[in-house]
């Protein structure tokens, strides 16, 4: 029973990390129709900034998160303006290549400046300790991650369903040309949505560093994971991404606990089965 609870907590927390990072990717792919393989690179930039602030400067965890998110958004805004804007609506292959190119550049440049070592982000003592929740104790960091995941999901839901910006965003997704004709500045909508996606990637990269360690090839290694989550969930769907993250997080974590010698084997087998059965993902819309 103890084991089941701790496996479940781990799976849930892992799923939430996947969610926070992938929901940004899901937005980019659902809204701008860009297959963005550089999303993992954004998370990696966030992780490197946080590690620098928290470990090398010693400013603490909270400033690290804030600076990582703000810094990554600032660094990546020019990318949207000068590179991504040119590939909206282009064939998928070109998008894949451009974003892989960006990923390679990010890996090369970060390692030039920070060296090819694993970067740790020290947790504050509050999160490093186990927390007593009455009938048993859980790792504080896991609870923090789960809370963050739920908060992000709720905030995004509110933003998209209940605000004026959300209305414009949904209108742009449905018909960009018509929305533009009605006077909505769609380039601005794109830029803001892209920044939100980048910020979420950086946020997830920082708080998820316990699950997905920040290392030189982070951007390539986990990019596949995020892409898989979005495909399984269906691009552009918050609910789909949540379901996909929880399902894949559970499959991966349980697989590792029960049969550690098979590693990712079950994960990818499950992915092939799911994508074959639901080619548009769980909650994807018809193209």
């Amino acid at each position, binding site marked *: 029973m103890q084991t089941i609870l701790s496996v479940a907590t781990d799976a849930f927390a892992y799923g939430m990390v996947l969610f926070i990072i992938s929901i940004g990717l899901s937005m980019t792919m659902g809204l701008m129709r860009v297959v963005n393989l550089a999303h993992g690179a954004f998370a990696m930039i966030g992780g490197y900034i946080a590690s620098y602030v928290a470990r090398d400067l010693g400013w603490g965890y909270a400033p690290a998160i804030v600076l990582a998110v703000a810094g990554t958004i600032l660094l990546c805004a020019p990318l949207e303006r000068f590179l991504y804007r040119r590939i909206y609506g282009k064939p998928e292959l070109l998008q894949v290549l451009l974003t892989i190119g960006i990923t390679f550049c990010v890996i*090369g440049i970060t390692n030039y400046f920070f060296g090819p070592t694993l970067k740790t982000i020290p947790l504050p003592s509050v999160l490093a300790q186990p927390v007593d929740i009455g009938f048993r104790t859980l790792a504080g960091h896991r609870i923090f991650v789960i809370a963050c995941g739920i908060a992000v999901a709720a905030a995004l839901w509110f933003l998209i369903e209940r605000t004026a910006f959300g209305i414009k965003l949904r209108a742009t997704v449905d018909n960009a040309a018509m929305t533009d004709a009605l006077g909505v500045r769609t380039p601005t909508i794109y830029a803001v949505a892209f920044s939100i996606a980048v910020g979420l990637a950086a946020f997830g990269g920082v708080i998820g560093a316990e699950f997905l360690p920040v290392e030189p090839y982070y951007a390539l290694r986990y990019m596949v994971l995020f892409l898989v989550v979005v495909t399984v969930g269906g691009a552009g769907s918050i609910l789909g991404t949540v379901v996909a993250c929880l399902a894949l997080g559970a499959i991966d974590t349980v697989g590792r606990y029960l049969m550690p*010698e098979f590693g990712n084997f079950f994960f990818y087998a499950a992915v092939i089965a799911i994508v074959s059965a639901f080619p548009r993902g769980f909650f994807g819309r018809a193209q």
Partner: protein
Amino acid sequence: MTQSAPLPATVAASFGKRHPLRDLAGFAAIILAGAAGYFLFPDNLALLTRIIAVALLVLSLDLVTGYCGVASLGQATMFGAGAYAAGFACVHGGVTEPLTLVLVGAIAGAAAGLVMGAIMLRAHGLAQLVLSIAIVQLGHEAANKFSSYTGGSDGLAGLSVSPLFGVFEFDLWGRTAYLFGLVLLVVVFALLRFVVSSPFGVLCRGIRQDPVRVKAMGASVFPVMLKMFVISGAVAGVGGALAAISTQVVGLDSISFELSANALVMLVLGGLGSLYGALIGAVIFMGFEHTVSAYNPFHWLTMVGALLVAVVLVAPGGLASLLDKVPGLGRREGGKP
């Protein structure tokens, strides 16, 4: 790439014509380049053989991506299948004849292509891309976990290949392996020239341009594409077997996402939908990689990344599109007369 789709019949008219002179010039260029490599870099023949093996992989990817329009980030599955099959046959099966090993690799690659095509062709767009990644990762995990057969992360070592035709031994300097690889490349290239200019190859191009229209004309899309996947798998399998024979070891990296992604980069660098482009891309990419990454692997990544961005923004046709300006060598795109 997305020009107004001409009727496949008109494409057939322009492709049906064979260009024996142009083909001969192309073969002469490949053989000359190969011979030049042999005499100019006698100390780097292992690298040159590796380039040939990877060039076969890029050619196979070109068949699927350039001619059928199916973007794949998992092409190394077929390469790895060929390499491991040749490795098994040699280490566990006791087959040492190099040509037989290449045949084994081709068959295993074709089988992998059949499975991969059957899975990937069910989906479209992003889902297709993710399926290809999932398949190569699954293969990678499988090769890693069944380490009693595959050697896991240490690689499958100990291939002892008997002399070619019983005469030419695979020497320490890799001379035999290189020449063997070069001949394989030329033969495969000649076969592929035939395949892509046959009615079947033209139908594939038609499907790439407009699958709905081809279907409306009465041709069935799925079996044609699957057939191309099988051919592509056989080519990649030959490449894998060549890599296994020449290095006498099969590593986990032969069935990896990284190799697949690199192959795609090489193909686009050289030029999609052109067999020469695939060769040019492989040679340039691997040549630069060898030079620059010896200095610092991360500089190499930055450079490739910048190059990719530049190619996408400036020359989406790849380097081979520059060849179009040379009379007698250029490829014909679409239905232009």
